[in-house]
Each structure stands twice: as C-alpha cells, then as structure tokens.
C-alpha cells in the first residue's frame, strides 16, 4: 500500500481538515482556552485508548473499561467519605482496577473464553459493584490540591496535567508497541496467534498482562475523572468504552488484530475529541453526539474493508 493511502495517514489528514473547518466556521473553537478544555475533556478516553490499542492489536478487547472507571470513581467516593487520605485511596483504587483486569485476563487466558463475551459480562458486573459501593449518592469536596491537578494546566503552558501525562505515556506506549520485542509479539499474536506461540512467544502471559494493564489504566482514569469533575458517582464514565473503541478503530487498528499504529490511534482520539467539542459548541444534544460516535465507529470499520474490495477491482485481479 502506498504511503499516502495508509489509513492512519488519512485519519491524520482528516484531523487537520476538521480542525481547519472548525477554526474557520465555528466561533470560539480555535481559542487556546477552548482547545485546552477540549483536550482536558478527552483525558480519560485518551489514557484508556493507549491500553486498548495494545489489546486490540493482540486481537483482544476490553469492554469493561468504563465500568472499571465507574467502580474506581465510586470507591474513591466511598473511601474518601470513610475518612481515608487521598494518598492512600489512589493506590488502593488503582490496585482494585488491576484486579478487575486480572479477572478479565484469567477468564480469557485460562478458560479460553472470547474477550468480547467476558468483558461484556464484567461490564455489567463492575458497574453493578460500583452501585453496591456508592449507591445513587455523589461524593464531592475533594482536596483542592488534587482537583487542581486534574483540571489545572502545566505552569506556563495551556496543557492540562492529564494531557501532559497522556503525552508521556503515549511516548512510552509508542516505543513499546513499535520498537520493542514485546510490541512485535503483540502484532504476531494478533495476526496469527498459533504461529506466535510456535515461535516461543508466551501468548497467554502477555495477554494476561494486557488485561491487567487495561484495568489499571481504567481505574486510574476513574481517579482523574472523579477529581476533574470533583464528584464521585457510580455512573461516572457511562459509555466511555464506545468512545475509546471508536477512537482505536478510527485510528486504523484492525479489530481482528495484527494491524495498526499508535500514531493513527492518537489521531483518532483527537479527531473524536474535536468532533465532540465542535458538536458541543454548536449546541448539539448529547444524543446526537452519541449518534455521531456510533457512525464513526461503523465508518472506521467499514471503510478499510471497502477499500480492500474496491482497490483490487480498480487494478484488475492480482
């Protein structure tokens, strides 16, 4: 495939086009304040998308991330209410997220169940646990030093702290995925699991690790979400998994595994973020925003397939 026609490059171009259109037509879009807000608003999705990219490249998926985020938020609230220090709460909650991921991973690797089914199950389970922990109440009044970290910008820049963290983690993830043996192994597992296993790659161990990572990151995103809104609720982050998966697939990662780049995913995340922001500025209802996310998801899965059908037809059969 020629370089110009690569999917992730196309998404990058689309991102630029949307940005340009937005700046020219929507007042208040291309301001530092708005863009900083848009990025901050994207923080949790972006963080979770990093771990999700690794999973999907290895031909697995974790649909329970938003529920882990909710459970984490509920736990933060309950424990804070119970008088624990926030410094104790954060590691504890992140650990719970790791355990949630471990449960997903064990069900997938030890019992050989499909991750799609397992994590639909735990999507309901973990959200249910969130309600058990906190019920319908909301807990607020977190220490200002911490909420400031979640909403504030890195001094001297318009970059919110969570975004700065994302940039750092994205760099690490990019290196891991594209330059290390571990990343190579992920692509091999996603493209041809049997051949990967025959090449001595510890397939199950790696998958287990990915699920634990996904749960951990989702729980941490729950902490960020809670502090950013200053409100712990069991229904926090409802439906975030769809936005994450839409961003990953839109970024050109094949749902069947083995294909995709982190650069593409970052472009996908930003594209979804910008579109959501534009819709918000245009006073479009959340229902319509949800429809747009859904359509993007379908388009991103459909287009590469269409291209792979149309391209040979244009060239003549090989």
């Amino acid at each position, binding site marked *: 495939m020629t370089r110009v026609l690569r999917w992730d490059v196309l998404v990058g171009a689309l991102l630029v086009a949307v940005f340009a259109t937005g700046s020219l037509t929507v007042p208040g879009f291309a301001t530092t304040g708005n863009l900083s807000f848009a990025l901050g608003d994207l923080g949790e999705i972006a963080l979770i998308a990093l771990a999700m990219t690794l999973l999907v490249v290895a031909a697995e998926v974790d649909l329970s991330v938003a529920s882990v985020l909710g459970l984490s938020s509920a736990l933060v609230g309950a424990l804070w209410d119970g008088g624990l220090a926030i410094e104790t709460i954060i590691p504890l909650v992140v650990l719970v997220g790791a355990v949630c991921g471990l449960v997903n991973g064990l069900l997938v690797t030890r019992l050989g169940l499909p991750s799609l089914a397992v994590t639909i199950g735990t999507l309901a389970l973990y959200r249910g646990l969130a309600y058990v922990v906190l019920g319908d109440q909301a807990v607020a009044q977190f220490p200002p030093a911490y909420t400031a970290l979640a909403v504030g910008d890195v001094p001297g820049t318009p970059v919110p702290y969570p975004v700065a963290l994302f940039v750092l983690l994205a760099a690490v993830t990019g*290196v891991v995925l594209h330059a*290390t043996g571990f990343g190579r192994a992920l692509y091999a597992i996603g*493209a*041809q699991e049997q*051949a990967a296993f025959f090449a*001595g*790659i*510890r397939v199950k161990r790696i998958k287990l690790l990915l699920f634990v990572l996904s749960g951990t990151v989702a729980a941490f995103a729950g902490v960020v979400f809670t502090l950013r809104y200053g409100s712990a609720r069991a229904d926090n982050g409802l439906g975030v998994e769809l936005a994450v998966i839409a961003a990953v697939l839109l970024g050109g990662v094949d749902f069947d595994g*083995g294909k995709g780049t982190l650069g593409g995913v970052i472009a996908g995340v930003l594209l979804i973020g910008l579109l959501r922001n534009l819709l918000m500025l245009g006073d479009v209802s959340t229902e319509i925003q949800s429809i747009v996310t859904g359509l993007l998801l379908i388009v991103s899965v459909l287009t590469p397939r269409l291209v792979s059908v149309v391209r040979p037809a244009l060239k003549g059969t090989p």
Partner: protein
Amino acid sequence: MSAHPTLALAGVSKSFGAVRALRDVSIELYAGEAHALAGENGAGKSTLVKTLAGVHRPDQGMILLDGEPVVFTGPADAQRAGVAVIYQEPTLFPDLSVAENIFMGRQPRRSLGRIDRAAMRAATRELFGRLGVDLDPGRPTRGLSIADQQLVEIAKALSRDARVLVMDEPTAALSGAETARLFSVVEALREHGCAVLFISHRLDEIFALCQRVTTLRDGQGIASEPVAGLTHDDLVRRMVGRDLGALYPKQDAALGDVALRVERLTREGVFTDVSFEVRRGEIVALAGLVGAGRSEVARAIFGIDRWDAGTVTVAGRDLPPGSPTAAMGAGLALVPEDRRQQGLVMEMSIERNIGLTGLRSLRRGVTISRRAERDRAADWAARLRLKFARLGDGVGVLSGGNQQKVVLAKWLATEPSVLVVDEPTRGIDVGTKAEVHRLLSELAGQGIAVLMISSDLPEVLGMADRVLVMREGRLTAEIPRAEATEESVMHAATRRAA
C-alpha cells in the same frame, strides 16, 4: 475415445501486470485419460487450473470444449460445462451430513419443497458405489479425514455430471494407504469416461497413475507426451531445465553425543511410551501413517502440547512440559507441519518473520535493532538462497518453497542443537526440495541433531540414518539405514503381512 479432447487449452497466454503467468500453453484432456500437470512452484500450474475452472479468462488463446471454442464467464459457468476442481484441502460444511454436502443447493425434493432425505442418501450411496468407496452418507463431515473429505468432493463432482476432474495436489496430505484408495477412485472415474487432470509434486504418483503428462516451466509448456517411455530424470529435467543430481544427498556425518533423549513419553489418548534418542550429526526419520501420532510427539517435545508422563532431555537438561520458550532456550527448534498457520505470520514481512524467534537476541537496550533484524534476515536469506524482491515484503507473496525457506531461516537463526522438522518438503517443488535436503544434510554435518517427520517414503529412505516407525500412537520399529526399505517401513507402519 472420441476424436476431440473433452477439454483443451489452445495457445493460452495470461498475464498479471508485468508477470506472464502462462505463455502460449496448450493442453488436451481426453475422456478416460489421467493427465498429469508437472512443474515447479511458480511454473504456472495454478493459473492453468484456474483458467480451466473459469476463474481466470485467457488474454490470448482459446478454451475448447469437445472441440468447440467456449468462453467461461466464471467458475459457475465452467461447472455447468462439466469441469470440477478438487482442491488439496476440501471446504465442506462440517455440521452437515455427507449426503447434504454432496447435494448442497440441489437437494431432491418432495411435496411442499421438503427435502427428500431418503432419496438423497440413496443417491449418495449409489455414487459411492460407482467409486468403490465405503462411507456413511448420513454422518456429519466433521471428523472425516482429509482423504475422506476429498472423496466427498469427488462424489459431489460426479453428482453434477462432471466430465473433467481437476485434482490440485490431492495427495499432499494423504498417507500411503489413502493415496492408494484415491488412485483406485481415479481409475473408476476414468472407466466412467471422465478426463482427469492430476497435479502432484510426487513424481512417482505421476508415473503410477497417469497416461500423459504436460510439463510447465516459467509459464511455458515444455512438453506434452505419454508417460510411458519417460524416466524420472527426464521429467525432472523438463521441470527444472537442468540435472538435479541426487535428490537425497545425506552425507555420512560423525555421530556425536546424544542431543535429544525422549523417554517413555505419553500423552493420554494420543501417544504412549515413546522412547528414542537422536545424536548430534544424525538424521532420524519418524515415519508412519498420517494420524499415527508423529506430529503430536513433535509438538509435545517442543512444548506446544503438554505430556502426561515421561521425560524429554536436551543436551542433558530435562525440559518442563508445555513450554516452547523453555524448549527454545534449551536449543530445540521446530519447523512445524502447517506453514501458513504455525510456521509464519502471513501478514508480516520476511525479515520480521525471521526475527520473530530472536526478539531477545535482537535487542539493543530496550528496543529491537532494525538493523540487526535486517542483517539476520539478509544473512539467512542468502545462506538458504531465498528468492525474494525485498526483505520488507510480506511473506505471503513468496512461493510455497520459499515460504518454507523462511520458516527454516527463522529457526536456524536460533542456532539450535536439535532441529525437529515436520513434513519439511510438503507441497514444495523438486528444485527447492533438493535444496532443503542438501541443507538438512549440511546441518547434520555441522553436528546438529535432526528429527524429521515425513510421509514421503523416498525422502525418509534417502535422508535418514535411522527410521523410527509409529503406528497408533506407539513406536513399532527402529530400522537402521541399511535395512530400511519401502517394504520394511510400510510393514511396521501398517502391520500388514510383508
């Protein structure tokens, strides 16, 4: 025999972009005749088959049906004209019965459009009767051997009144007995006036089964002639355009210490009490029928499957069960049976496939050195005389023989002390086959212990210092090179009276 061939190609050319797959090729298939198509991988056999099957349309030349020019607009059109293709790996619906598979889409009906199962079974039984085959029409096709599945495909073709049967490497995955049965079916088809086009890399089969042979080389028809009067060497020369020398050049190598010792290895219900050892410099063949448990033993040794009892020792170290990583660490390498599923990641490039077994050794700091990866691939590609355009190309564009070389490269790059190869030359052309044999011999000469599983008896007899024979999950014989003959090996493999 009628004056006109049932089906013929006259002066057919076909190009794909710059690649000229067929150049002015002619072939005539007569009723009642088995016609062999010989040629190395990439010679144009597949293109010719697909042209006959209506998948490709010739750029030049004609297809003649009973002497009349025809144009096949697609596979369905060719099927209507009576051309049926049996592929190496049949594609049946596993949960439907044998009879339902045969009559898929054309089931006999009763009133109200209900399917007449009794009639369908009876018709199936009649078809099997004509072929001299004993299969239950009512059983599901899941669990049938590949050989039986092929018979179902042949019956399906017959039920559609196929007059030309094209068989694309049907014997590649069959055992000796299954091949013999397939041959008798082909004889039956000929007697019913079918024209058969038979493709095989095993030249013995061409001599045993066919009356005529057409040889392709680089897309050109080299010769179309009666098989009688041809020798093995004649045919090889037509295919490769040169003399190959000995096909099985195992040199004597000094035997060293025991490199692999397998003791009383058992995996319940699969194989039992398997004990043997392989010394450095030795090639030991593991022979037997398909399903005797040979590949399963290899898989267990390498840690793909767990074993229930027994030990595997490599260079004095016991291996833990079920860990390919540990097996690799101990110096084992496995070139598996199924290249496309187990040997290669088809979507990855040549260099990345070769690098996949060296993710640790290619590391510089925390990242993989692309330069080291490319050097490793380039080095092994040169040593194995791999034919490729760029190392960054997908491994899927290579021919079968060259793909097998990539699998070998990937494992040789780990510098193993014990190399297990499972059907190393299945489905690859004669030229590459000779190269693989030379390579295995060289490796043994360098002191590597080689365990070779093969269903190709001449290969077993030509290459092995010792032949181990398995039957129904047990080792039944150990035959030294001097005493190994087709008879002694087949006898041990089938327990038939010699």
